[in-house]
């Protein structure tokens, strides 16, 4: 079976029609991982036993001629920030190097309940903090399109695995752009659903008012299938919303004719690479030819999104990461005599450079005397950013932008300058802060054959519209 262009439906149909067994398909992917992944570094942990048990279960159903569930036998990968019972989960960090979760993340459980075969856990920046995957405590991920370049981050392994055809689809998480930016860098589809759309139960928390789980896939339809599988209220996550989940796949069939698409000038200014601009402008022309109405709009507070994000996200992270203290799970230093020394040295030795930087920044922003100046200020500006979108969405159905100001950069290029790394998220953080959904869909390449991403942002809980626009674009090119 040809693994290179295998979509969810193709994989499931092959298993349903017994052209291949789910077990053979899983084995074929493991062979390909063994052959190709040493150069890429997408996987951290393989869950072969669990995957093959699931595959055998699917094969037994297929043998009985039963109608298989929507992801039956589909080989998928999961970002290593989602816990998996009995399968080591590290969040890309040494502090969780030997952590064996006693329970499953809801999104992963829902994928498996729909028949998916989880091949393993995917590399990422430590605690999802980074834009290049170079902050993984284990090893970097290389971009399958050009091994000298980064795959983006923090879901770099999730994007690279799909791009390298060593998973049909993957789950990633997005806090500041961590699904969409790597999807753009690797030339795959990446969808960040609305805040509250997908349960975060079992997602190792980075910034709780921002974190979201979503799919990375080869096609927009596959993203719709995965979203339909993982979306919806979960009593185990009180932030998961009680909002009906439409059939995203059926919704793809609706026409996009007459939809109003906003183009915000703030996303086409200084810092946008000329080739990226050209590709994105061409994509907007394509959408205009599909009878969408292009409407110039303004999101005036966009330039304040990165500073707002780096206060809100680090403040929440400093609180969430306080739990890693060497007591209940994870790494503990051997070099301590008192409890206080044990906490400090455990954290000193267990956390990497970027994680410590963010804990320090967040702790500073929350500390007495600076709380109002930084944290409260950032929360107020966050309101302004959310209002920008509320105003624009009174006039348009969706907003189209570049996903990232540049194509994939070289490994090491931004590692010594945290601020320039943070600016890689400039077009993605706004949607995280406002809670709206966004998708990145491939839209052409640079002269060096590096993929460019078109970002489509939608209204709260209106993933159906952005998926529909993304699919119409995908089919037109």
């Amino acid at each position, binding site marked *: 079976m040809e693994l290179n262009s295998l979509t969810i439906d193709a994989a499931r149909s092959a298993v349903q029609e017994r052209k291949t067994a789910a077990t053979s398909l899983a084995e074929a992917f493991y062979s390909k991982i063994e052959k190709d992944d040493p150069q890429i570094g997408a996987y951290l942990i393989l869950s072969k036993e669990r995957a093959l048990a699931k595959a055998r279960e699917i094969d037994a159903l297929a043998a009985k001629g039963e109608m298989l569930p929507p992801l039956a036998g589909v080989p998928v990968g999961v970002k290593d920030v989602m816990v998996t019972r009995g399968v080591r989960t590290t969040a890309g960090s040494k502090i969780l190097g030997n952590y*064996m979760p*006693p*329970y499953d993340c809801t999104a992963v459980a829902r994928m498996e309940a729909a028949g998916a075969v989880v091949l393993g856990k995917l590399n990422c920046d430590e605690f999802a903090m980074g834009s290049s995957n170079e902050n993984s405590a284990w090893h970097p991920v290389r971009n399958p399109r050009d091994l000298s370049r980064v795959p983006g981050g923090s879901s770099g392994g999730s994007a690279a695995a799909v791009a390298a055809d060593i998973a049909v689809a993957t789950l990633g998480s997005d806090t500041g752009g961590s699904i969409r930016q790597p999807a753009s860098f690797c030339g795959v589809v990446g969808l960040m659903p*609305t*805040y*509250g759309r997908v349960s975060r139960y079992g997602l190792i928390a980075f910034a709780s*008012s921002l974190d979201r789980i979503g799919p990375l896939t080869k096609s927009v339809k596959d993203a719709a299938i995965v979203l339909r599988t993982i979306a919806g*209220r979960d*009593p*185990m996550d009180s932030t998961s*919303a*009680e*909002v009906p989940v439409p059939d995203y796949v059926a919704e793809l069939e609706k026409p996009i004719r007459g939809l109003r698409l906003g183009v915000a000038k703030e996303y086409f200014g200084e810092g946008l690479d000329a080739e990226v601009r050209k590709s994105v402008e061409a994509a907007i022309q394509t959408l205009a030819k599909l009878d969408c109405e292009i409407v110039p709009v303004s999101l005036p*507070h966009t330039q*304040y999104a*990165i*500073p707002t994000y*780096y*206060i809100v996200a680090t403040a929440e992270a*400093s609180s969430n990461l*306080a739990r890693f*203290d*060497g007591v*209940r*799970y*994870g*790494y*503990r230093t051997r070099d301590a005599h*008192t*409890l*206080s*020394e*044990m906490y*400090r040295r455990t*954290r*000193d030795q267990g*956390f990497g450079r970027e994680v*410590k*930087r963010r*804990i*320090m*920044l967040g*702790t*500073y922003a929350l*500390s007495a005397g600076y709380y109002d100046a930084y944290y*409260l200020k*950032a929360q*107020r*500006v*966050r*309101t*302004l950013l*959310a209002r920008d979108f509320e105003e624009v969405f009174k006039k348009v159905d969706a907003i189209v932008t570049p996903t990232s100001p540049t194509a994939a950069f070289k490994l090491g290029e931004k590692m010594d300058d*945290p*601020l320039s790394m*943070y600016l890689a998220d400039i077009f993605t953080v706004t949607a995280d802060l*406002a*809670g709206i959904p966004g998708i990145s869909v491939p839209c052409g390449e640079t002269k060096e054959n590096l993929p460019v991403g078109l970002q489509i942002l939608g209204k*709260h*809980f209106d993933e159906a519209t952005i998926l529909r626009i993304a699919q119409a674009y995908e089919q037109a090119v």
Partner: protein
Amino acid sequence: MKVTEKDVAYVADLANLELTEDERGILLRDLNSILDYIDRLNQLDTTDVPPMAQVSDRYGVDQSKTGSARFTYAIREDIHEGLRKSLPHEVALQNAPDSDGIFFKVPKVIER
């Protein structure tokens, strides 16, 4: 320079980090450079703008209600054994760096 060496030491203390001399030096530089950039937030007058602490009380809830009434959908009957059963003792302790089978063990807290 907004952040001084003393601030770095104080914040590290709050965050339960020790940090090496080298790390403190790098953080001093990085925090100042990042906070300089963050200062552009002060270009905005936000006197009358309410802070946004979370997203879920603004969207996907009954807008006609206020405060916690917006989250009534999340209220359910008590389930005696919990939504998911509690973990058995040995499972809850299996990841502990040190335990006696009943409790998590840590270095002595009080010196006699």
